[in-house]
C-alpha cells in the first residue's frame, strides 16, 4: 500500500513538473508549483519524514508561493514566447540525467534496513538519543543537539536572506495616514479571518513547545506565526499590519534570534563545555540538554518569524508603493 501511494504521488509529481515546463501563464506556473510542494510534502509524510513534510508544506507551499505571487503582481503574468530555441539545455539535462541514472545503478535498494546509510551513524541517534538527550522526537534531538551547529548555520542563512531582501527592497515605513487597503469588499472573509488568526497564533505556540515530543519546532512555529500575520496583512492591508508589528521591530527581532542561539553556545563555553554543549547548562546533563534545546528553538523561532514576516513586508511594501503613486 505504501509503495502504491508512493507511486501514485510520484506520478502526479512528474505530470505536474512536465506541465510546468510548457506553461506560459506564470500565474498557473506558480499555482502548479504550490501543488508540487504539497505533493512532495505528502511524499515526505509517506516516507516517514513528518518534520520535513511539516516544513515543506509551510515553506514551499506557503511562504514561497506567497512571495512568488507578490513578485508576479509586480512583474506581470505572462511569459513572453521566445523564438530562440536552443538544444544546449536539453543536451546538458540529458547528460546530467544519464549520469544520475548511472549513479543509481549501484545504489543500495530503496527501503532496505541493511543499507549503509542505516548502519553506521544513524543507529546511535535512534537507540541512544532518547536517553542521551531525553526527547522522544529524534529529529529534534539530532537537529538541535548532535548537529546543532548546522542549525545555527541555518538560522544565519535565514538572517542573511532577510538582510539581502532589506538591502534590495527596503522595508515599508510605518505610515499613519495610509488608507486602509486589503480585501475590502469581502466581508465574510474579514470576519472569518478575525476568528482564525488567534487560533493560528495559538497553534504556532503549540508547535514551538511541542516540537520536542511531536513533529514541529522553532522553524515551523516561526513560519506558522508569520503566516498568521501575513494572513492579517492580506485581508486587512499592509498599513494595518505594520501598525500591529513594526518593520523596525522585526529587524531587531531577527537579529535577536541569532544572538540567542549563538549566545547559548557562548554561555556553554563560559560554563566549561564545548561550544553548544548543553550538558553544562544545568546540573543534570538531561535537564541541560532540555533547557538548551528549548532556548535555541526559541532563538530559531524568533529569527524565522521575524525574517519571514519582514521579507513579506518588503515585497508587499513594493506593491503598496506602486499602488499609491
Amino acid at each position, binding site marked *: 500500500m505504501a509503495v502504491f501511494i508512493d507511486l501514485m504521488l510520484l506520478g502526479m509529481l512528474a505530470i505536474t513538473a512536465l506541465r510546468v515546463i510548457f506553461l506560459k501563464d506564470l500565474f498557473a506556473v506558480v499555482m502548479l508549483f504550490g501543488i508540487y510542494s504539497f505533493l512532495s510534502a505528502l511524499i515526505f509524510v509517506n516516507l516517514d519524514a513528518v518534520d520535513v513534510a511539516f516544513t515543506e508544506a509551510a515553506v514551499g507551499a506557503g511562504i514561497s508561493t506567497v512571495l512568488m505571487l507578490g513578485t508576479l503582481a509586480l512583474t506581470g503574468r505572462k511569459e513572453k514566447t521566445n523564438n530562440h530555441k536552443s538544444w544546449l539545455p536539453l543536451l546538458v539535462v540529458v547528460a546530467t540525467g544519464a549520469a544520475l541514472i548511472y549513479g543509481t545503478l549501484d545504489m543500495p535498494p530503496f527501503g532496505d534496513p541493511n543499507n549503509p546509510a542505516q548502519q553506521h551513524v544513524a543507529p546511535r541517534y535512534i537507540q541512544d538519543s532518547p536517553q542521551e538527550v531525553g526527547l522522544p522526537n529524534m529529529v529534534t534531538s539530532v537537529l538541535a543537539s548532535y548537529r546543532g551547529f548546522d542549525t545555527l548555520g541555518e538560522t544565519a542563512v535565514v538572517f542573511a536572506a532577510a538582510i539581502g531582501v532589506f538591502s534590495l527592497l527596503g522595508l515599508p515605513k510605518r505610515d499613519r495616514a495610509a488608507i486602509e487597503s486589503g480585501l475590502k469588499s469581502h466581508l*465574510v472573509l474579514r470576519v472569518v479571518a478575525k*476568528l*482564525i488568526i488567534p487560533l493560528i497564533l495559538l497553534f504556532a505556540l503549540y508547535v514551538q513547545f511541542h516540537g520536542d515530543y511531536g513533529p514541529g519546532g522553532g522553524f515551523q512555529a516561526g513560519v506558522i506565526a508569520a503566516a498568521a500575520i501575513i494572513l492579517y496583512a492580506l485581508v486587512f492591508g499592509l498599513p494595518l499590519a505594520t501598525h500591529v508589528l513594526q518593520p523596525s521591530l522585526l529587524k531587531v527581532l531577527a537579529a535577536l534570534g541569532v544572538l540567542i542561539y549563538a549566545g547559548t553556545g557562548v554561555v556553554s563555553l563560559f560554563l566549561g563545555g564545548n561550544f553548544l554543549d548543553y550538558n553544562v547548562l544545568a546540573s543534570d546533563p538531561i535537564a541541560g540538554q532540555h533547557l538548551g534545546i528549548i532556548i535555541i528553538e526559541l532563538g530559531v523561532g524568533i529569527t524565522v518569524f521575524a525574517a519571514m514576516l519582514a521579507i513579506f513586508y518588503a515585497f508587499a511594501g513594493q506593491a503598496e508603493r506602486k499602488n499609491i503613486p
Partner: protein
Amino acid sequence: MILETLSIIFLVLGAFFSITGAIGLFRFPDFFTRVHAASITDSIATLLIIIGLILRTDFGLIAVKLLFILIFLLLTSPTASHALAKSARHGGLLTMAETRDDKNKEAH
C-alpha cells in the same frame, strides 16, 4: 463494534461524496456550477470523513485535533469558495445562461 460500523458508514459516504464532487468539477458546464459542486461536496465529505475518523479514536487529544481540523475546514473552505466565486463574478466571468444571452444579442 457499533462505533466501528458507524465509522465505516461515514467513511464510505464521505468517499462517495468526494468522488461525486470531483466528477461535478469535470462534468458541470460553467464555472459557477462547478464551484457549487465542488464546495458543497467538499464540506459534506470533509464532515463525514472526519466524523468517521473521530469514531475510531479513543476521544482524546487526537479527536480534539480532528475536531479542530473540521472546524477549520468548515470555516475556511466555504469562505474561500465564496470569495473565489465573488471575485470571478467581479472579474467579469459570466454564467452559461448569460453567455448564451450575450451570444443571442450579438446574433440579433
